[in-house]
């Protein structure tokens, strides 16, 4: 390891501090809610360690608690994480100096804030070195996995979740995430459409189909409303997802 690598690694560790502070509560909340929804501590940790995408993990545990076909849960997790295709496509050209193995590791660790900070660093004209990337990614990853274990361990002692309103936290969290996207183009029409269609589907077709039907309605609307000549949408940082 050269001196430059060491300096980059330390800089990455410095840059990730606000992200860890901002996501610690959600990592623990995930572990606690996972146990409330019937998962074991081992499964909560496995989920944080392998899927490693906060919002989709919350979607997963919400669906584990209801009568949803397994393939549909997998599809929902994938649907929520599909935005990473855009991150990957955007950041790929910046990682040209990485070997294939380094790229393979870097893409595994490409969570929302990692993407946002990498773009920010690139915009300031600084190269994204492997040392900086890992200096940032390793502490975020280790904290996220540890938080799931802490939340799952203490979640067992919480008893009746409705008594503390904990069952309402997950829907509120999703509202918060959706509001975080509100500067995106056609956000309001998409949200209103998905919301209205999902409520109608919930009342008529029933759960769990309201999730897919409502989501497809919103995505189709976005595709229809896109102007063929419009500039490419900006891929932005999605708050709340670590």
């Amino acid at each position, binding site marked *: 390891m050269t001196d430059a690598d060491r300096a980059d690694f330390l800089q990455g560790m410095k840059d990730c501090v606000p992200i860890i502070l901002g996501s610690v509560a959600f990592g623990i909340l995930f572990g606690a809610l996972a146990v409330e929804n*019937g*998962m074991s501590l081992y*499964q909560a940790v496995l*989920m944080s360690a*392998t*899927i*490693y995408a906060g919002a*989709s993990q919350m*979607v*997963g545990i919400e669906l*584990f608690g209801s*009568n949803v076909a*397994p393939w549909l*849960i*997998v599809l929902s*997790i*994938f*649907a*929520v*994480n599909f*935005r*990473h*295709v*855009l*991150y*990957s*496509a*955007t950041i*790929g*050209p910046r990682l040209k100096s990485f070997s294939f193995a380094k*790229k393979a590791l870097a*893409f595994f660790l490409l969570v929302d804030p990692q993407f946002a900070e990498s773009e920010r660093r690139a915009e300031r004209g600084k190269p994204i070195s492997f040392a900086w990337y890992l200096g940032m990614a390793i502490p975020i990853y280790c904290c996220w996995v540890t938080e799931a274990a802490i939340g799952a361990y203490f979640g067992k002692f919480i008893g009746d979740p409705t008594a*503390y*309103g904990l069952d*309402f936290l997950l829907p*509120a969290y*999703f*509202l*918060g995430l*959706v*509001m975080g996207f509100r500067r*995106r183009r*056609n956000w309001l029409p*998409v949200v209103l*459409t*998905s*919301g*209205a269609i999902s409520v109608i589907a919930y009342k008529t077709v029933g759960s769990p189909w*309201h*999730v897919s*039907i*409502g*989501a497809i309605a*919103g*995505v189709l609307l*976005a*595709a229809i409303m*896109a*102007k063929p000549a*419009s500039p490419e949408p900006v891929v932005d940082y999605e708050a709340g997802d670590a």
Partner: protein
Amino acid sequence: MDTASSEITWIIIAGAILTYMARFGGHVVLSRFKTVPPRVLAALDAVPAAVMTTLFAPVALTNGWPEAIAMGLVLLVGLRFNMTAMLITACVSIVALRHLFG
């Protein structure tokens, strides 16, 4: 009926593989195209909001007054404050409203 425990583990593993494919695949697939159709980009851009809306809208509108009012309060708080403030509002208001309407 909840999802069985062994099924949960397999769902996690399948979800992890697909998530990794999304994280790696974007670079592999999209880098081969010179331009991506705007409608495809717009659809991808809308995916997270569209999916997550379906996870709170029915709770807000079909569960009863406490959930509807509390979700409205969370929305108002979210216009000014961060996620932590929203979740504290959610917890406090739902407990108070359920007590009130209970």
